[in-house]
């Protein structure tokens, strides 16, 4: 298994390099360094000299991939791509285009993101699985029919509606929590509660329905019939046999997103004005801050690869048939 993991980590390098190149190309197809400079300096009263100065100060005066004027290795190293992107492999994020330390920003902003994302995922998972198991327990009854109908209705409603509706109902009418914002330390819980609640409610329809189909697929299998033939009561059949086997596909979806919790949710964070990494990314895209965008894309890719690795490892824990080799 160690060999397998090492090999997968080696595969990650070319993958990350490719992602870097792609992000770089996509970004500079849309923007030129001149556009970036004008964006930062403001559209009015910009002289070509101040644009050149902005570019020189931040290293955007170099060619993109190939420096024909320079000699020797400088042909490769004297480019924007080399200087801006390759430091990422050592997790040197450098400075953003307005001069802030990106590494420090990330270190600070990941905590609010985690405070929202982790409880949303874990409590949400628990709620989804419980609802799904209940639906399966009452299968072929009216309870199941209306439960599924409700799930479909719930998943048909847009997330934005849940967010605005929740803010209006809980924040404004009932005044149980603040509508948006964030606080430091333990006081943050008052600001965290509403986004978490809304995240769970918005997800329960699709989640429960998806898990229900996974359970239903298992519940008609031969080994479940064997469990019933032993005389086990239905709840024990569901928990000891069905749930254990259905966990295998559930894990695929869940473990892979675990590392990505760091990067937060783009929509929720901007609606609730949470200073997390999600809103950080959105702001950077709006301001054409290439330094931050490439850092977040790189971080996201690394975390995703990590998530896939974790999924593989978790398979060996829940499914004895799987061996990494």
């Amino acid at each position, binding site marked *: 298994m160690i060999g397998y993991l090492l090999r997968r980590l080696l595969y990650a390098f070319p993958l990350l390099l490719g992602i870097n190149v792609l992000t770089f190309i996509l970004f500079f197809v849309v923007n030129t360094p001149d556009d970036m400079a004008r964006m930062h300096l403001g559209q009015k009263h910009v002289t070509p000299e101040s644009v050149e100065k902005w570019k020189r100060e931040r290293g955007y005066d170099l060619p993109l991939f190939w420096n024909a004027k320079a000699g020797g290795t400088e042909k490769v190293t004297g480019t924007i791509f080399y200087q801006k992107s390759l430091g990422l492999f050592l997790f040197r994020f450098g400075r953003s285009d307005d001069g802030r330390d990106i590494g420090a920003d990330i270190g600070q902003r990941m905590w609010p993101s985690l405070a929202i994302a982790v409880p949303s995922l874990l409590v949400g998972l628990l709620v989804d699985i419980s609802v799904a198991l209940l639906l399966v327990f009452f299968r072929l009854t009216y309870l199941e029919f209306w439960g599924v109908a409700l799930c479909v209705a719930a998943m048909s409603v847009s997330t934005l509606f849940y967010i605005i509706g929740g803010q209006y109902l809980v924040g404004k009418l009932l005044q149980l929590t603040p509508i948006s914002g964030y606080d430091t330390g333990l006081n943050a819980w008052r600001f965290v509660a509403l986004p978490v609640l809304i995240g769970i409610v918005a997800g329960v329809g699709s989640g429960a329905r998806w898990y229900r189909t996974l359970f239903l697929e298992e519940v*008609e299998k*031969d*080994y479940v*019939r064997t469990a*019933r033939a*032993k*005389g*086990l009561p239905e709840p024990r059949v569901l928990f000891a046999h069905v749930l*254990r086997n259905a966990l295998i596909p559930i894990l695929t979806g869940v473990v892979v997103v675990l590392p990505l919790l760091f990067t937060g949710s783009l929509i929720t964070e901007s609606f609730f004005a949470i200073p997390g990494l999600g809103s950080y990314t959105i702001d950077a895209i709006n301001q054409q801050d290439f330094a931050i965008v490439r850092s977040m894309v790189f971080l996201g890719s690394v975390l995703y690869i990590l998530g896939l690795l974790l999924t593989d490892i978790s398979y060996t824990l829940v499914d004895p*048939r799987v061996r990494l080799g």
Partner: protein
Amino acid sequence: MPSIREGGNEVIVPEPSRTKTEPARALLAVADLRVAFRQDANWVPAVDGVSFHIGKGESFALVGESGSGKSVTALSVLRLLPQSGRILGGRAMLGDRDLFALPEFAMSGIRGKRIGIIFQDPMSSLNPVLTVGRQIGEALSLQRGLKGRALKARALELLDHVGLPDPARHFNEYPHQLSGGMRQRAMIAIALAGEPDLLIADEPTTALDVTLQAQILDLLKRLQRDTGMALWLITHDFGVVAELCTRVAVMRAGKIIEQNGRGFFEGPEHPYSRELLAAMPRLDARLRDSEVDFDDKAVDARNPFLRASGGGTVDLTEGGERLASAMSRDGIKKSPLDLPRLAPSSVGSRMERPEREGIKAPLLEVRDFKVHYPIKKGIFQRTVDTVRAVDGVSFSLERGETLALVGESGCGKTTLGKGLLNLIKPSGGRVRFDGEDIAGLKGEARRKRCAEMQIIFQDPYSSMNPRMIVGDIVEEGLRAQHPGIAAEERRERVEDLLRAVGLPPEARLRYPHEFSGGQRQRICIARALAVEPKLIVCDEPTSALDVSVQAQILRLLRELRERRGLSYLFITHDLAVVAALADRVAVMRRGRIVEMGETRQVLFEPTHAYTRGLLAAVPKLRRTGPSGAP
């Protein structure tokens, strides 16, 4: 097609057997059971008024083909029907309690405790993510209230009792780490955990190899003797019934059409029972067949030399010598049985194919063929060892000949078949097909050659694309090999092919799922025939089918061989099927051929100890006298 007469559903119950065990003393008495399944909006009856009883300690067999309702009957008694099934009426009395009147929670005192059940496929019937020990322990703690050390001790005792070697080791293993036979033993141990009065065995050996089948049947017999429990066997295999049971009921289309004691094997009274019994392939089938089925014309068509001869004459001496030399190359003595095939009366037969250069060589010649799978380890996936799935196999196949490749699962017979067709990359050896070394061919030439070798797979359910209509499935190969043929002519050829395999031409426009298993296998055969192959590799083509359907498919294969001069490489584990179809037999074990020879010689005078073991394990229909009846 077996013709069932109009009155076929009439129930024949001989008077004696009805009076012998009175229902009052019966352990289980099922009366007028009716079960239906919901299909779309309709209720389709699956069991239609079935009544029978099983006495204490008795062994009772419910026999029938798939879809006859026998498994549904058993599941109904335990109230374990799938969701779409409903018990519409009837009673199932266990002692003086009606199982259908009990509340659901009370059924856990019945299931596993009074009635145990083992299912057909031990792999899918065991929970893949729990250890064997845990799955037995669960039953023991529930039914016997055992805990901790006592539980483990009892579980180990049970595993030992069902003949699982080294129970302490397997206790902590998962089902996939056990072999098929060991899994079924574990399954039996689970069923026995509650010490039931009745053990239902639903096709307990169908998924197992013949040698394992014999062991499991012995085990069931021994357990029944030791514990005094009753056994309710559900099977389609009369051989298994004859081994185990004292009373037989035959089911068809949801009804029991005949119940009898051991006298059943003397002469079943219902015509359907007789047909079922007759449809069962037997080891001695070949001898009977050759008297009845193979007339001169048939022999003529199958004769490798006659078909190949150009001007209507053939040098018999040369042919005979070649046969002899081909056989001695294989290390097998020429059997005198082969000579009558070269009867001069059949020499004048018309040839259908033009003469070729390589006509003198056998159709297929395989030398030292190998398929090895590498075992890779470490960060850089270096090959540390190989699995020798096929390890140096040599044989030859004449035109029009059928060579059966026999062996237990895992012996490499399927891998060999796929390797020959290059569906798996071979690791070594030479394959000459029709005089040409096909291992060296590439690209277009290889593709053309491939059309002359086709394969039919075991499972007709999964070997066709469910989203293509039958016509397209059959036509696809034709279109790939002969793109020049006009659509109209292609359609005609597809219709001809469907007719040739006994299907109506209209079947062209329907999807595979609309057909039964036997019909699907016919479609697969039509698909293989479409590109006019010379050789068809048949990979267990009948083992997923019922006996009567199996008999039909074998008959079709035989007819096609005679009409089209096909050669078959017939891969099977079923020796009775071999007897019905093959000219020669090769017995495979662990990637090698251990014995090869004429069918008659291998089946009746085997020389290798392994072949003898295989043959001894086949359950046989013994014709017991009247004293055999209970």
